Every structure is written in C-alpha cells, then in structure tokens.
C-alpha cells in the first residue's frame, strides 16, 4: 500500500494543479484571472511530461566521460525534455499576446468584467 502511494503521488499532484487551472478558467468572471488559470494549466502539463521521463539509477542526458558507458540504460530519455523546452517558450509567447489583448479591451470598453462586456458589445 505504501509502495502504491509512493509510486503515484506525482500524478495526483499534477491532477490537482490541472483541476485548479480548469476551475480558474471556467468559474471566474474577471479576464485577468482567467489568463492566470491558463498559465497554471500550461505549467501542469509541462510538469507531467517531465515527471514521466524519470528512471531509477540513471543520470542526466549529458554525456559523462568518467564512469557511465554508452549503454543506453544509464541515461534518461532525452526526448521529452527537448519537447518541453519548446512548449515553455510557446507558453510565454501566448501569455504575452493574451495580456496585450486584455489591455486593448480595457482601453476600448472601460471594464474587464465578463457580464458587463457582453452587455456593452450588443
């Protein structure tokens, strides 16, 4: 039972983060709070991919010249780490564009609430 708990606690943590992000997107009425929920969601997905790619008794995918040989069992799989670098940078770019659009909306309509926005557009 303890073995089961120690093996799975990382995934439960990621699921809790994902649910917090989803709650922020769906149930909050301010636009800035929705964007913060989006950022939390992106971070949880990156964390999930990185936590999958771990192995007992293996080291970082940087070639060491001392002891570990070129047998593949000594190194981690480098492919998820590489893809997550790209994902982080794309997330930063998306957040920049989202905040710029929020500023344009505020300068035009003078409010940032969702209900008042829907009434003012009509």
């Amino acid at each position, binding site marked *: 039972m303890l*073995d*089961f708990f*120690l*093996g*799975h*606690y*990382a*995934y*439960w943590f990621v*699921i809790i983060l994902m*649910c917090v992000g989803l709650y922020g997107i769906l149930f909050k009425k301010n636009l800035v709070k929705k964007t913060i929920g989006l950022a939390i969601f992106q971070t949880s997905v990156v964390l999930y991919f990185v*936590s*999958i*790619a*771990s*192995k*007992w008794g293996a080291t970082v*995918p*940087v*070639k*060491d*010249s001392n002891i570990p040989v*070129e047998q*593949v*069992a000594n*190194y981690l*799989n*480098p*492919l998820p*780490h*590489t893809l997550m*670098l*790209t994902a982080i*940078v*794309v997330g*930063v*770019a*998306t957040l*920049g*564009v989202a905040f*710029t*659009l929020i*500023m*344009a909306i505020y300068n035009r309509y003078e409010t940032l609430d969702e209900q008042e926005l829907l009434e003012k557009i009509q």
Partner: protein
Amino acid sequence: MIYAASDLPYRGDPDNLMHAEESITGTEVVGSYVIQEAYKDAKTPNIVTVILGDYRSVDTFGEQVVVFTAGLITLLILRSRRRQI
C-alpha cells in the same frame, strides 16, 4: 480522474519500464539511437542541445518565428491613433 491516474500510469514515478526505453517494439527507438550517436556526430556532450540544434533544427527555427511574431503583435497594439475624426 484520480481513478484513471491510479489505473493507467500503472508504472509509478521512479519505476523502470517507461514504455520500452531501451529495447525494441518492432523497430529502433529514437531515444536509444540518439544517445549512442550524439557524440560521434557533433562532438558535444550535451545530448539535449544536440537534438534541439542538429537533429531537430527546423523545429527550433519555427519556435523562433513564433516568439518573433508574438513580439510584433505587441508592437502593432502600441501604434497611437493621431487622426482626429
């Protein structure tokens, strides 16, 4: 969703079977090929940089275009309206 997490990632966090990390399910796996050939190809100890800069350099170029476009969007919002209508 917690029920799915207890069932599907049947292998825990530091476990050793990470969907055929070293052996074959039919053909060769990308991870094992890259680890064995990276130093002979580029003389660089860092395998992640070799993947991002040599084997998948077009992906990195596309990502640079994405970041550059995001910067350009903020420039277009800034443009001040001087026309008095």
